[in-house]
């Protein structure tokens, strides 16, 4: 049986049997230090280096899993326990099956015969393009992360594309975004503010998943039902550009992609029921999905089997017993952490009583030097940025309109927001700065704004209406790289 013993008043040592995991949950102000003393261990598929002290914070909830057994030593988290019932064996089998698809795809590209193909004979040479569905708190993101990490750990130069279409997750930038990023190194876990790694900064990073270059679109809201049409369009934009990228990137294409979805895709009841099937279809179409993983949801599995079972593999996989029920307040706080981390970075303070040097945070060897970021507070003229809002702020669903009545403003129409008007809602708003529109004027179109990717995010921290100026918090020095911005429903709180 797994054993634990106190090393001293501050630290405790656990010995984990093979294929068991140590789970922990942190309170808002708590931090945790974990050191692998011996054996092999991993966190969501990212292996720990022996002897390094890893730090966790910001209400991180995670698990240290071991395939072969290990001993770990850590400070005292808020909640901790060891479980030997994990679905990791299933995930590992899924990974092996996906790996076979990758290998086959690559062999096909190089025109090599598949040696001793004892796997699925009927399979073609398509790389795995996986859609992960599941209800709230089923561990979808953990599954995606583990699968992506196993792929990059294979040592075969796989570069899987991680696609996040869950706007409440925010992935690599801020909540409200849907994005895709090629993954070249295991995604580290240290804080839910950067659950999937972080985007590039000017600091030197050791782990490339802390310097990701995502392609990001701004949806601007946490819930899918707010504007499903927009969501649909952004998903398709993402897919189209990924396909473009794959044309020139064989290694990336053969590595496949993994799509993490919001829980609303799986919600079987309540509002948005009709939208979720549209969304799933949008994902399946645009990402050319050929594997659907349903995490712990029998009914959805059956539904997907019926709809897509004849065209692709639809699998039900067990959800981990370790997932934590998260409430809305928690998600709120995570959004705040994420926004803050985007601008300022975050350095986790080691817990009291740990006297060691050389902490590792998210795989970074010198977090205190490289994970502190300095944003820039700048004053800009109202005229320097044109701010849009997509659709009207409070919009009744089309079905609620009188019969025969047409909408005056469509859900997809970009409306210019005038900062001088009261109630513009811009104070403390988070804006997505968009890439410059097509330089060729003749190529422009009305809704081009919907198709422009994000180059970065800013927050309006002060409005000076008489002087027509506003103060914005910008992630990095230098001029804003775009003049077009979209405002969503996220607020910046210092």
């Amino acid at each position, binding site marked *: 049986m797994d054993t634990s013993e106190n090393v001293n008043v501050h630290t405790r040592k656990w010995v984990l049997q*093979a294929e068991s995991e140590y789970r922990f949950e942190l309170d808002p102000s708590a931090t945790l230090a974990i050191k692998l003393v011996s*054996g092999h261990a991993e966190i969501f598929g*990212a*292996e*720990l*280096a*022996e*002897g*390094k*002290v890893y730090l966790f914070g910001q209400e991180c909830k995670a698990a240290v899993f071991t*395939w*072969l057994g290990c001993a770990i*030593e850590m400070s005292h988290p808020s909640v901790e326990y060891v479980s030997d019932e994990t679905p990791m064996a299933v995930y590992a089998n899924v990974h092996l*099956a996906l790996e076979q698809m990758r290998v086959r795809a690559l062999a096909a590209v190089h025109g*090599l015969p598949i*040696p*001793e*193909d*004892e*796997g*699925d004979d009927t399979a073609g040479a398509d790389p795995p393009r996986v859609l992960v569905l599941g209800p709230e708190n089923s561990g979808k993101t953990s599954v995606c992360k583990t699968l992506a990490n196993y792929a990059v*750990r*294979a040592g*075969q130069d796989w*570069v899987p594309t991680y696609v996040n279409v869950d706007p409440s997750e925010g992935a690599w930038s801020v909540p409200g975004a849907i994005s895709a990023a090629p993954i*070249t*190194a*295991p995604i580290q876990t240290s804080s839910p503010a950067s659950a999937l790694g972080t985007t*590039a*900064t000017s*600091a*030197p*990073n*050791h782990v*490339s998943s802390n*310097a990701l*270059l995502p392609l990001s679109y701004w949806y601007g809201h946490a819930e899918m039902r707010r504007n499903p049409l927009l969501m649909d369009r952004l998903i398709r934009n993402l897919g189209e550009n990924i396909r473009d*990228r794959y044309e020139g990137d064989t*290694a*990336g294409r053969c590595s496949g992609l993994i799509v993490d979805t919001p829980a609303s895709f799986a919600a079987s009841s309540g509002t948005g029921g009709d939208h979720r099937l549209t969304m799933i279809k949008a994902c399946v179409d645009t990402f050319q999905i050929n594997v659907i993983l349903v995490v712990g949801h029998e009914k959805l599995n059956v539904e997907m089997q019926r709809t897509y079972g004849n065209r692709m*593999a639809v*699998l039900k996989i067990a959800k981990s017993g370790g997932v934590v029920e998260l409430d809305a307040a928690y998600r709120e706080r995570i959004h705040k952490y994420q926004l*803050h981390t985007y601008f*300022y*970075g975050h350095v986790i303070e080691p817990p009291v009583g740990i*006297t*060691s*040097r050389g*902490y590792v945070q998210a795989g970074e*060897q010198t977090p205190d*030097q490289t994970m*502190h970021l*300095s944003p820039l507070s700048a*004053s*800009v003229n109202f005229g320097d940025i044109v701010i849009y809002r997509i659709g009207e702020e409070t919009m009744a669903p089309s079905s609620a309109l009188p019969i025969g009545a047409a909408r005056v403003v469509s859900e997809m129409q970009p409306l210019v927001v005038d900062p001088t008007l009261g109630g513009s809602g811009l104070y403390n708003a988070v804006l997505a700065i968009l890439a410059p529109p097509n330089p060729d004027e003749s190529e422009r179109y009305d809704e081009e704004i919907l198709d422009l990717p994000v180059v970065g995010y800013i927050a309006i921290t002060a409005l000076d209406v008489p002087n027509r100026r506003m103060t914005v918090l910008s*992630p*990095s*020095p230098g*001029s804003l*790289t775009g003049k077009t911005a979209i405002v969503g429903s996220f607020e910046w709180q210092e």
Partner: protein
Amino acid sequence: MSLYAQTASYAQMPYQGQGYGPTVVPPNPYYAPPPPVPQPVFHLDANTFRRDYMTRLANLTVNSRPIIQTLSMIAQDYNRYADVVVQCIEQHLRRVPPWMKLPSFYLLDAISKNVYDPYARSFTPIVVRLFLDTYEAVDQQTRSKMEEMLLTWRTGSPNGRELFGVVSQVAIERHIWGGESTQSTPGGRDGGSSISQAQVLSELEFVLGQKERVLLASPHDELTKHHISILQQLRGMVQAGVPQRDLQAILTQLRALTTPSSSPPPPAPAPASYPAAPSYSQLPPIPAPPIAPQPPYQSQPPYPMAFEQPQQEPVDLTRLLPPVAPVATTSVPSAPIPDISGIFSALVRAGVVSTTGTPTGAGTSSKPEEPSQSADPESQARQAYRKAIMSVKIKLTSSDVSKHRPRIVETLYERLPTQCKQCGSRFSDDTIGKKQFEDHLDMHFRQNRKATQAVGRGHSRSWFVSLEDWISSNSVDVKGKGRADGRTVSSKVVAAEEAAKREAELRAMFVVVPPGDEAKPISCPICKEPLKSEFLEDDEEWVWRNAVKKDDRIYHATCHAEATASKSSLAVRLRNERPSRSRSRTPEKATPPRVHAPLNGDSRKSETPTPSRLAGMKRKAEDDHTVTVKREGDVPQAKRVAT
């Protein structure tokens, strides 16, 4: 005694490489061109000599080898005026602005080492104050140069002892490395320690620099390569933080390495004496931790970095120390070669260097041995992997994935026995894997170096890449090589590199200054900025750098090329402009603004460029103008991190 013969004795000093290293470029571009170095003249009295030497010293504004050589030669010839020379240098050093101080210190260094007597003696009373005052005043880059120099002083005297005596040396070292907490490395946390991490790092850096230069001289020296990689790993380890005892041990060994470096010339130490093989085979049998359930999995000794001395670890710190300790206690270190292998074997034991040598144990069973001679090891490795993966019997169905025991351990661990101790990444133990592992360690090293260099400089979140860059960036590279910093080579970056290369070529162009015109100031007709003249040692001529002669007028080569390009081709101009707008990182700095700036100034200041050029130029100048102005408006005070 000729100076050139003497320089061999400190040929390993960093700034000796190419004429006192990278020239220190003064921030002010308007400094007057130094006059040609005159021959030493004869002086009759101390006052005349003082005046003359001061005048010559005033020319030492850049790190110029000829000037330093001349000045130290004069000092040698007139050693009866040693006190005057010392006073002059001290005065000069105290008077000049910080960016001019380093060359003067190099002079002090050169005189003290090459002439030694009586100068070293004369400098001794003042050198501590002088060094520390200067050190306070200069920027970080110059500081590290000064630290390098300080390290050479340890063994700078002809008999291999401290150049200015042990008291001065220790006084300076204690001041800049000792208990100060200005270095924001994690080492600062345990106050009151006798050795700081910064000091060890600095010395490591120095030894590493020496080794790298040896390698440059003889690129095929496998031993030195090996040493370098060990030292790099050691560095990473130190940066990550090691206990005080280890710092002491490392320091002792490093010093042992540097001590003899002044007597034997640089060419690499004899490889024959390197007891590499024994140190591998002597690797003690590692007691498997009790929890290891499967035989093929081989545990590695735990990394000796502890929360607080974990006593129950099977392998403890003490394992690291025994091979180190004997050397540490001997007062007079012996030959350098056994010492580095001492460090090495210590590292092997510590598990920092794991399977650089012959692979031990598991990992090879799953795939066929690859004869490295045959065809292409990479495709062979791929084939082996393909075979291994395809041999797994698994179907992508709900029942199949939950029924089987996964054969995952083999895939994730056994195939890849070499693990990076820094981040946990794994590598195979074939030739490719070894190469990747080396590159990977280099990456850690580079990033660590960047991080230490950037201490105090604020970092910030980068803008995302443009859509075109995202689509065209290729993801071939993985964890092994550099781009952990997130930079992917894209078309834009390549274009920027090409532009930079073009610019460098242009800047390398020169026009020989007509005799007699050396002192005449001359400006580029396009940008109105003065042309810089400099002395070419090889040709023994004064030239204007970055210059072309067209129609009897001298232009900046860059200005001229830009003007011609903008006149002739709109496309070229567009291509040059776009990267600076849409690139994600360092938006305005990377590419052509240096070329633009002069043009910009031109059309604003002077109203009469030739009309043909104006057409293409003006609009661009306006473009740049708006950009610049907007930036000025946009960017007031930087907001620093609040939390």
